[in-house]
């Protein structure tokens, strides 16, 4: 049963290699691998729910020598989210590519990306994290550039350079850790870590590296071009998953490893950067002319919300309110994953039909694709944080804790940010009404529209009503609660 942990990254890895060797069977191989990943993630989640968090040493080597993996409630939830979204994206991708050459490159790279994501969620030592981050970065860059258009390549180059700088910072931090503490195992470090200048440097480097990867303001400038110019099927993974894993790492490290370094200044720093991201992202999304650009700016804003929540978590003392907020942040992150991937997939469908994604000219296309427009609506509702979406619950807790602390400026920013989201989403949806008759067949391309729709339905509706167990999972089986 614990072996299912291995399949999480072994399956995509094998699939990636096999897809290079057998390109004609690539789709089959990869869909199979993705299903294995999905099943394994569910098994892992149920194991964690039953028996709590656990370590796993690869190949049975003893600890200290072995590469160890660690799963708890938080990682298990993220794994399941990733697996479900990856399944939807993969099904979508089977119908997306019309160019055989792009398809040949897509599947190996996409499987590698999935492998990297899963590694990052379960790695228990810093070097594994470094390797995972590099793998993630390189595959993401390659996927961004996959269609060969000049704008995509330019965006990919910038993504690569910025990503490498982030990795360098991370590596610098890791090196410092080794020189200071002689070990890279996270659990071992957390026993020894002391608050001094040297460790402060470590914390700074690692955090900066991760902030670059998660595109928090002011390290956000690479994201709009990258996500807007990549093919929609890639952008979905980038915005929903790649960014998310970096945020997950920041939460994980700051709530466990770096918790001694926490002080009011740090929490205000995160919250301030988050606030700036919310406003900057929201404002630009409102003025975006292209659908995918709108979605990219929206991601920046949503990351801002997540960091504002993190800032609040760090500010609050241990206790019930803090734990509830942690859960709220997690549901916010998960909902965003589903909603943003749904949005990008839907944008891809629209772009393929219309030949472009300029918002002002999409009215006809939106009316001819009712299911896709519906997907956009559901995803939009989740991004705004209206009920009945999972994000509504998260925002409720966020606003609640900010009000309880009396931080009225933050309250105003959160509300303004949400209103900005409403503004740009409804500006988008306003184009869906017109005088064109509804088409006879509701579904245009099943394999593309249904996964997107299911993702959106999860974000809005499913998560809202079934999220209650999340808090008990985090409580019983996680190290993040105080």
């Amino acid at each position, binding site marked *: 049963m614990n072996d299912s942990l291995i399949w999480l990254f072994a399956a995509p890895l094998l699939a990636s290699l096999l897809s290079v060797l057998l390109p004609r069977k690539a789709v089959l191989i990869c869909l199979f691998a993705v299903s294995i990943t999905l099943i394994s993630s569910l098994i892992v989640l149920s194991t964690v729910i039953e028996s709590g968090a656990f370590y796993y040493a690869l190949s049975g080597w003893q600890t200290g020598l072995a590469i160890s993996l660690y799963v708890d409630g938080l990682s298990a939830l993220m794994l399941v989210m990733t697996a479900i979204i990856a399944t939807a994206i993969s099904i979508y991708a089977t119908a997306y590519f019309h160019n055989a050459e792009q398809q040949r490159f897509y599947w190996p790279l996409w499987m590698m990306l999935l492998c990297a994501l899963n590694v990052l969620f379960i790695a228990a030592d810093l070097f594994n994290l470094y390797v995972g981050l590099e793998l993630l970065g390189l595959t993401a*860059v*390659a996927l961004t550039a996959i269609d060969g258009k000049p704008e995509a390549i330019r965006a990919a*180059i910038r993504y*690569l*350079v910025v990503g490498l700088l982030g990795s360098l910072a991370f590596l610098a931090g890791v090196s410092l850790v080794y020189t200071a503490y002689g070990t890279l195992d996270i659990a071992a470090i957390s026993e020894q870590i002391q608050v001094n200048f040297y460790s402060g440097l470590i914390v700074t480097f690692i955090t900066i590296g991760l902030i670059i990867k998660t595109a928090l303001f002011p390290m956000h400038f690479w994201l709009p071009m990258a996500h807007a110019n990549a093919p929609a099927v890639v952008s979905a993974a980038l915005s929903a998953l790649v960014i998310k894993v970096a945020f997950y790492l920041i939460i994980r490290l700051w709530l466990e490893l770096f918790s001694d370094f926490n002080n009011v200044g740090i929490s205000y720093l995160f919250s301030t950067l988050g606030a700036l991201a919310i406003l900057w992202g929201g404002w630009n999304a409102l003025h975006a002319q292209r659908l995918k650009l709108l979605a990219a700016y929206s991601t920046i804003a949503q990351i801002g919300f997540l960091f504002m929540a993190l800032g609040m978590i760090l500010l609050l003392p241990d206790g019930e309110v803090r734990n509830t907020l942690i859960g709220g942040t997690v549901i916010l992150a998960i909902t965003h994953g589903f909603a943003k991937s749904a949005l990008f997939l839907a944008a891809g469908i629209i772009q393929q039909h219309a030949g472009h994604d300029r918002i002002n000219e999409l009215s006809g296309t939106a009316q001819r694709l009712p299911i896709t427009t519906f997907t956009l609506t559901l995803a939009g509702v989740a991004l705004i944080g209206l009920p009945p979406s999972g994000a509504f619950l998260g925002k409720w807790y966020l606003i609640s804790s900010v009000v309880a602390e009396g931080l009225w400026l933050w309250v105003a920013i959160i509300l303004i940010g949400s209103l900005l989201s409403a503004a740009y989403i409804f500006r988008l949806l306003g184009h869906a009404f017109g005088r064109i008759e509804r088409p006879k067949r509701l579904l245009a391309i099943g394999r593309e529209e249904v996964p997107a729709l299911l993702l959106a339905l999860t974000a809005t509706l499913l998560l809202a009503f079934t999220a209650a167990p999340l808090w008990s999972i985090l409580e019983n089986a996680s190290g993040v609660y105080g």
Partner: protein
Amino acid sequence: MLSTQLIYGIAGIVLFVLSLRVAFSTELFLRQVLAINVAGAGLFLTLLSVAFKGLEQPADPIPQALVLTGIVVAFSATALALALGKKLAENSPDER
């Protein structure tokens, strides 16, 4: 006074800082890639200097493993960067 280990270590850090400065300040793509590479090399140098445990004992293998991995990663990243740059130069010759 300064041991070899310390010299290597400091040299690595200096290299790192200088290259980062270049990476941030230059507009040319190729220069950025090279600067990042050198910065990485600086980090590796520092890391290796930690591996030294004196002339009698074998060096600590873990930093060596880290550096090896890092070199491989830097290599792949550079390859990717150059491939992208080449593709871009082919498509739009006015870029550098």
